[in-house]
């Protein structure tokens, strides 16, 4: 039987899902709930104070992005920002064309609107990825047509951590525009997973739109931004009082915006140091897994510059991810899986499938994503139990990958 821990430890290894809020962020936010609760659109002093705070948050964020304050649109989070980018560009420029290019490994907040636009007559082209989960800039450029209005490629993949060549794609798009004497296509990137680890300099990345949210960088949930390059028009989705330069109506969520700005500032200031630390923990865990557990496979790029430093995605052959997850939960370890059994559609992770992984590999995949509060002790604790858990579930399993073909594929 499995060993039981003397003391259960909570080991949170799902930072790609969301993060705890930083105390400093909470402190910055607090006054704006209670005393400084004004509506930034109000003219009296209380409103003006809120407006000033909003302006300073905007300035902080735009500085982190090397952008202008007026290019920052506050939204309710990553999903809204992605939706606004895609619908906003598609609908504002549909007289020019109805073709969009994206990739097979995007977040559902991008894939959803694209599938919806397709129903309305848009033509969507998806670029594939290689075995490690990388999109090729060349392939994207080759897909551009006269009627392409938008290219949307995520910055860092949430499941396998592959960092996409955003700057390279951005440069190639610039070149295309110049050679063809056109302003199209625009270029959007979802940087939700990248914000804590990579540069967000929009000038270096050559992006026209960029999505960031607060809840992955120790900021509040329900707060996000869309960077929108000057001169690029989008059609708003939420209409009303005309806030955010008429691109996103609704009274600004001042405390959340203050928190988001503080969180982004802290995340960007710490990103190199934190990245190094988390990368070390990732490789340590991966080394230990290889040493102690047979039949495992790393999904995604090698741990290194091509991979988000906090992401480790491993397949444990012959076992099912949700079962692993539930066992780990009993020990206080929290992570996620790409198994079909956890998904609403009973389909395995679209990212692992796009990488050409066989079905049964996705089934046994676990994703660990590290964060600021993790330490070596977490890795040690996890590795005290993980080998036994995998062993136990393997004993229960009739499947032996490499020997028999999987049922789903037997024809």
């Amino acid at each position: 039987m499995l060993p039981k821990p003397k003391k259960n430890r909570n080991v949170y290894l799902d930072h790609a899902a969301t993060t705890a809020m930083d105390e400093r962020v909470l402190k910055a936010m607090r006054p704006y709930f209670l005393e400084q609760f004004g509506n930034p659109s109000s003219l009296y002093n209380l409103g003006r104070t809120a407006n000033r705070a909003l302006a300073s948050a905007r300035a902080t964020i735009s500085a982190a992005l090397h952008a202008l304050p007026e290019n920052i649109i506050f939204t309710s989070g990553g999903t809204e920002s992605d939706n606004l980018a895609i619908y906003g560009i598609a609908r504002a420029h549909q007289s020019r064309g109805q073709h969009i290019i994206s990739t097979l490994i995007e977040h559902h907040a991008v894939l959803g609107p694209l599938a919806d636009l397709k129903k309305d007559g848009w033509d969507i082209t998806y670029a594939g990825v290689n075995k490690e989960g990388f999109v090729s800039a060349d392939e994207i450029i080759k897909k551009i047509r006269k009627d392409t209005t938008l290219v949307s490629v995520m910055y860092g993949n949430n499941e396998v951590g592959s960092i996409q060549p955003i700057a390279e794609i951005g440069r190639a798009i610039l070149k295309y525009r110049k050679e063809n004497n056109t302003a199209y296509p625009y270029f959007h990137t979802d940087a939700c997973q990248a914000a804590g680890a990579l540069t967000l300099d929009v000038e270096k990345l050559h992006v026209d739109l960029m999505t960031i949210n607060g809840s992955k960088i120790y900021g509040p949930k329900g707060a996000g931004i869309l960077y929108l390059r000057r001169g690029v028009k989008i059609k708003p989705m939420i209409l009303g009082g005309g806030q955010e330069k008429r691109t996103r109506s609704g009274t600004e969520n001042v405390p959340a915006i203050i928190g988001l700005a503080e969180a982004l500032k802290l995340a960007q200031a710490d990103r190199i140091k934190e990245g190094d630390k988390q990368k070390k923990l990732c490789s340590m865990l991966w080394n230990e897994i290889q040493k102690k557990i047979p039949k495992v496979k790393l999904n995604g790029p090698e741990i290194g510059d091509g991979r988000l430093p906090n992401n480790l995605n491993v397949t444990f052959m012959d076992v099912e991810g949700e079962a692993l997850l539930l066992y780990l939960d009993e020990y206080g370890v929290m992570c996620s899986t790409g198994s079909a059994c956890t998904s609403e559609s009973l389909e395995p992770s679209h990212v692992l499938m796009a990488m050409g992984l066989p079905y049964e590999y996705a089934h046994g995949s676990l994703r660990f994503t590290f964060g600021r509060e993790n330490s070596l002790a977490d890795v040690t604790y996890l590795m005290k139990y993980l080998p036994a858990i995998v062993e136990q579930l393997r004993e229960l399993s009739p499947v032996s990958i490499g020997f028999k073909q999987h049922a789903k594929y037997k024809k």
Partner: protein
Amino acid sequence: MSKKVKKTDDLSEPVDIRSSSGGGWLYSDVVKDHFFNPRNFMQYDEEEKFEYNGMGRVGSPACGDEMVMWLKINPQTEKITDCRWRTFGCGSAIASTSVLSEMLVEKGGMPIDEALKLKPQDILARLGGLPDRKVHCSVLGDKALQAAVNDYFRRTGQHARVLTAGAKVIDAALNVTDKDIEEAVLEGARVLEDVQKKLKVGVFNKESVPQIEELLRFYTEKYYG
């Protein structure tokens, strides 16, 4: 072997097993107990020794899971005196099989005729329910059991008793069978459009539509009614 399990949420409420309410998670105590302490599974050191006279292996097209069941049937009494299983699947699949194995061998063993009549609902009832999305996991056990009993019939030369669950073609052009409809229902289909989506087919032949709708009702009733 057994251990204390935490009280979980009220299972009369529909349960989304992905919801993270923070507290204990959301299967019934019975499911948890069987998941963490599975009974009668085939241990490594038994593989060579365990004597059986019926073995069934099935795969679930729903999410790609697999199950094997080994039965030891007393030819005189036709009772299942012992059984072993292995399951590749989620917590619900493991718990379902474990519970099923317990039902088969308790009280001196279940007669095979009775075993063949077991329905997924019987397993579900004993488990204290599963979330809708997980009902299909319990169906696998039922199918593995039938396959194993059939194997026993074949081994003992009782070919006439073999139950053939032949698939009936509903839409010849698309090669859609009643089995396909059953699986679609288990994967969550409730109306014709769902079936089309799950089976990735276009429009059905007009004549086949009433029959498909009837099967939809039948299987929805069977598994969720």
